[in-house]
């Protein structure tokens, strides 16, 4: 079972990154819940979504402790890192986030998502760079197969873009396991 928090500024695509993860997980036959941040915190602050991915029925969509935090901005890391379990994973957008002084006992994967997306001429794909690093870091799904799921997701929305796959795979490459 994996509990994931995906967080950043509104506009960084954190809800979409979570949606892509949810949809690909579903197509792998997993049970999944996707809960958006909701209420006043959406207005001007951090946006986030929280997912559970599991092989069997998901009882409670809410959780207090996460196995994986995808932090796209500093505020997300600072406010949510305390919810990550011991030996959990934090994927940090090193273009914008400073992880010095972070608590011990978590595995930190740094990926310069905003810079990589700009370099690949797909600036809105920073969320997918982060997702690539996260998927590779937790090893839940093979990266190439997941990239196919990304292509299918955006094609299904009528926004097919090969640069999305490129962003995801670059992110995955920055976070090889071990």
């Amino acid at each position, binding site marked *: 079972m994996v509990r994931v928090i995906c967080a950043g500024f509104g506009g960084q695509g954190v809800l979409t990154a979570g949606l892509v993860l949810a949809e690909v997980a579903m197509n792998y036959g997993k049970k999944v819940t996707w809960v958006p941040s909701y209420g006043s915190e959406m207005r001007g602050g951090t946006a986030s979504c929280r997912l559970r991915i599991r092989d069997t029925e998901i*009882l409670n969509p*809410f959780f207090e402790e996460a196995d994986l935090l995808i932090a796209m901005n500093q505020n997300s890391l600072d406010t949510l890192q305390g919810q990550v379990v011991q030996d959990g994973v934090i994927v940090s957008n090193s273009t914008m986030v400073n992880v010095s002084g972070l608590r011990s006992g978590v595995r930190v994967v740094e990926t310069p998502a905003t810079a990589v997306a700009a370099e690949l001429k797909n600036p809105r794909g920073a969320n997918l760079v982060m997702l690539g690093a996260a998927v590779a870091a937790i090893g839940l799904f093979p990266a190439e197969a997941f990239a196919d799921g990304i292509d299918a997701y955006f094609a299904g929305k009528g926004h097919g873009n090969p640069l999305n796959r490129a962003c995801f795979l670059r992110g995955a490459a920055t976070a090889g396991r071990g």
Partner: protein
Amino acid sequence: MPYKLMKGNHALAEAAIRSGLALFGGYPITPQSEILEYLSDHLPAAGGVFVQAESELAGINMVYGAAAAGFRAMTSSSGPGFSLLQEGISYIASAELPAVIVDVQRYGSGLGDIFQAQGDYWMATRGGGHGDYRTIVFAPASVQESVDMMPLAFDKAEQYRNPCLILSDASIAQMMEPVLLPEKIACNPDHDWAVRGKRGQAFKRVTSTMYYIADFDAYIKKKYDTIQENEQRWEAVQVEDADVVLVAYGISSRICKEAVALARAKGFRLGLLRPITLWPFPEKGFAAVNPDVSAYLSVELCALPKLADDVRLATGMNVPVSHFLGGAHTPSSRAVVEAAAALLNQ
């Protein structure tokens, strides 16, 4: 059939279309506005009529009109908008017409706020409007149940010619889960009670039936007694040997299911009785509970306990009934286990 990842509101709206929805009349309010948004886009293409009414009052009365003509009709609202629907729901019940009303509960009285809550319980289960009527109230606990309850609600509304309520909340409405959608069905509005034009048609009653029925008191009592006898639905989770039984519906029941698993892993015999219909309240479900159960704990996302009253009535107050309230905050399953364990130690 492939699963589709859908938001609760969208799934519920799509299920309504597939259940033969012919008219939606309603007014937007968070957290149910995606129902209107979705239906405004998809219902006309499916051959139905979508009207964004000038108010909730207009919306529910459009539903009354469409129902009188035999069509499957629905409205949805939340918070103060749900209050405004009550007069119309009473009229539809009085006219003995079928309709489906969705209340996506939000927190607080007055304007309140937009996050999840379960504070409309009394309003939903006690009638809400004036006079002697009840609505059958379905309480989905997942996006899939938001789908599955829609055709059921229309079927039961027509079977008993009575409005049915689907009592969702902001969290189920806004979250996404994989769902299987039903096939679209075609509905024939030519019911023998429906007003289908003057020519060759017998007289039809589409206003208060009390004006036309001899011994109306006994008639209407029998109707609601029949529903109460036949339409109780519930899910029981490990209640047979439970020392404490949680009672919770909707999103709270999801937290409680996890609480049962947590407690059982520690050797604490916790159970859950989840009402699926809130009216009729599933009194029959309590028959399976361990006769030596120590206590019931009603878990509700309210500032004031409400469901707990029905637990007391259903159990004859033979066992202590306590409540654990979420208020504006969603409790953790761990906190629910602690509250239940505290009852055992009393």
